């Protein structure tokens, strides 16, 4: 990890060497002053040098380290631990929040799959609300990972569906279809990223390193299921509503200008819990489980129900199926 503890620079060495290049004392002084001046000018806004209070100074320092941190997949275990420590400290310093950020990896023998029962869903959108709370979604922009489409019986056309209904549900003569990130087996959003900031984990979850993302939104253009959301502004979550149980690749605080998406609640599901949407559903329309476990409910659904997926012709192989009773 690159460190820039400018404030802790050692006293200039007496042996007359600097940067492994022999220079005389005057030259060394010139180099130092020149370098410092150039550095200060270039980084004036983000270095700890011009911070007013010690707290602000520490925040700036941590932000600078965040800026220069490695890609998550290239970090060693130690670097990951340091990164997490820093992020937790930043949450404390900035908003006085005590959060725990996990880096739990994919569990062996697990491949997540989801099935959605269109005959059970009544369009209550408890899942949407649970998702917003669980994943610390931006309240100001009203970000939602889940979209529930109200569809007329007999019409299986999303163009004709109503995803923004504001009335009492269920409406007679209609059914409801929920969409979120389908964690495709061949995700079109992954290869398009110019900096490799998004990838698929071994358990099938497509994740984003928020700190590595440069915000070009190519993945957003590439997703055929409109599953990705962008932080156009700095996201806002009221302090008392923040879910402190977080994951580096999941619901930790995002910053403005980075992409985010549904991760099947990676912080929960990797510990064996259900995603928040599945847990919140009052109708039992949502079935989540391990596709590699032959005794799982999802495997039973796939084996015994008539299932379909959206836009199969695109061959992205979503791990999200629809079925009806």
């Amino acid at each position: 990890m690159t460190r820039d503890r400018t404030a802790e620079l050692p006293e200039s060495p007496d042996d007359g060497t600097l940067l492994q290049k022999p220079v005389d004392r005057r030259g060394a002084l010139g180099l130092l002053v020149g370098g410092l001046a150039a550095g200060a000018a270039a980084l004036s806004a983000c270095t700890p040098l011009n911070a007013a209070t010690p707290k602000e100074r520490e925040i700036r320092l941590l932000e600078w380290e965040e800026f220069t941190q490695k890609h998550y997949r290239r970090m060693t275990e130690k670097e990951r631990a340091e990164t997490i420590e820093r992020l937790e400290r930043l949450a404390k310093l900035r908003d006085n929040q005590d959060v725990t950020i996990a880096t739990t990896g994919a569990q062996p023998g697990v491949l997540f799959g989801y099935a959605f029962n269109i005959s059970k869903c009544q369009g209550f959108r408890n899942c949407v609300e649970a998702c917003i709370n669980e994943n610390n979604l931006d309240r100001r922009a009203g970000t939602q990972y889940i979209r529930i489409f109200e569809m007329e019986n007999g019409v299986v056309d999303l163009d004709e569906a109503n995803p923004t209904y504001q009335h009492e549900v269920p409406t007679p003569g209609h059914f409801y279809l929920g969409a979120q990130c389908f964690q495709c087996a061949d995700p079109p959003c992954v290869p398009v990223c110019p900096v490799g900031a998004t990838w698929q984990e071994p358990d099938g979850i497509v994740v984003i390193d928020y700190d590595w993302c440069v915000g070009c939104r190519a993945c957003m253009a590439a997703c055929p299921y409109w599953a990705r959301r962008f932080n156009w502004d700095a996201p806002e979550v009221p302090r008392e509503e923040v879910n402190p149980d977080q994951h580096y690749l999941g619901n930790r605080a995002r910053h403005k200008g980075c992409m985010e998406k549904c991760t099947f609640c990676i912080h929960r599901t990797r510990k064996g819990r259900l995603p928040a949407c599945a847990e919140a559903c009052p109708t039992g329309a949502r079935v989540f489980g391990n596709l590699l476990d032959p005794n799982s409910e999802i495997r039973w659904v796939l084996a015994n129900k008539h299932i379909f997926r959206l836009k199969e012709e695109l061959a992205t192989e979503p791990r999200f199926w629809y079925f009806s009773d």
Partner: protein
Amino acid sequence: MYLRAFLLSALRSATSGDRRYHLWMGSLTAVMLLGAYGYYVQVTQGFGVTGMNDHVSWGLYISNMAFLVGVAAAAVILVLPAYVLHDVDFSRAVLIAEGVAVSALVMCLAFVTANSPGLPFKWWRLTPVIGLLNWPSSMLAWDVIMLNGYLVLNLAIPFYVLYSHFVGHEPAKKKYVPFIYVSVVWAVSIHLVTAFLFAGLPARPFWNSALLGPRFLASAFTAGPAFMILLLGFIKTTSRYEIPDAAISKLATVTTVAAQVNLVMLLSDVIFEFYSPTHHSTSARYLFFGLAGHHALVPWIRTGIAMNLLATFTLMIHPLRRNTRVLMLACGALFVGIWIEKGIGLVIPGFIPSPLGEIVEYTPTWVELLVTAGIWALGLFVLTVLVRVALPIELGEVRSPNLEAPLSSRVIRPRTFRPRYEEVRPVRTR
């Protein structure tokens, strides 16, 4: 080496001029400053100040980028005949074409940067080793390589040629001709890669067409030469730099042919979308006719196509094309028409409706308009400087200090009276 003298004299050429020149550069600077302010607002407040949203995730910036890559690629229309086919008529215009390419690329890179909140500071992530350039799978990574490579080629070749002329040598063919060949292939590639950035996305049926790449080339070879004609016409009337009429009339022919090909491809697309409209045609329906009460782009695309049609048919009539004023008007119309058709008329409808059928329209905000205007001003500024530096050297007005002293062994002839390259073999053009 007279590099220092070269740079100093370039600086002198670029900063000296009459009042109109300073007024022009001053106004460009003012617009650039306005753009910088818009960019400052966008960086500090977040991209929420733009008109883009989760549905329409690319807007004016990427539209302009797609268009300008074409303008940059079109330099090949002059580079290929001038250097490879030894066309005398183009030999005097080719440096200017490379200048246009450089300024268009500067604009492209500026638009890409303006489009990504992370890029001004996180650009290093796009470099191999310290960053992570997702090459070869990401088309954007390809685009980054292609645009920067083409920029380097178009800076290095003219620099070498100009510097040689500056110090009184003829440029050594073997030193730059290999790079010319590279740049010819590169020019076509940058635009194909940019087209694949869109065409490679099955999520967006409006772009997901094999025709997109060729269509990009056809429109590029229309808009690029059209701009060159305007610029060469301007240089011809305002400077001593002689540009043969044949160069302009050849460019006019190229523009006319490319504009016709472009119209054929447009027609082909329209028939494809509307003869048997499928779900995949909804974006085209939105663009040309509006969809469910939303028709923000309809007046734009109709204006753009009308301009293209009118200009193309005008250029197809020989007496009209040979009339300088009509030619200039038609070229202006083509440039703007293609900008509409290929910029906002191609990028934005790709997002409407969204892949799940929602219709959210896009209107650029004042921030985007300011930044866009600023970047165009930056491009024109760069172009002006480059032309301003190149012309006096080519005219023999500015020379290396070593040539000021009387030279017994060498006679320097003013460059006005001979083709620019000694090695250029005259070819019969008719």
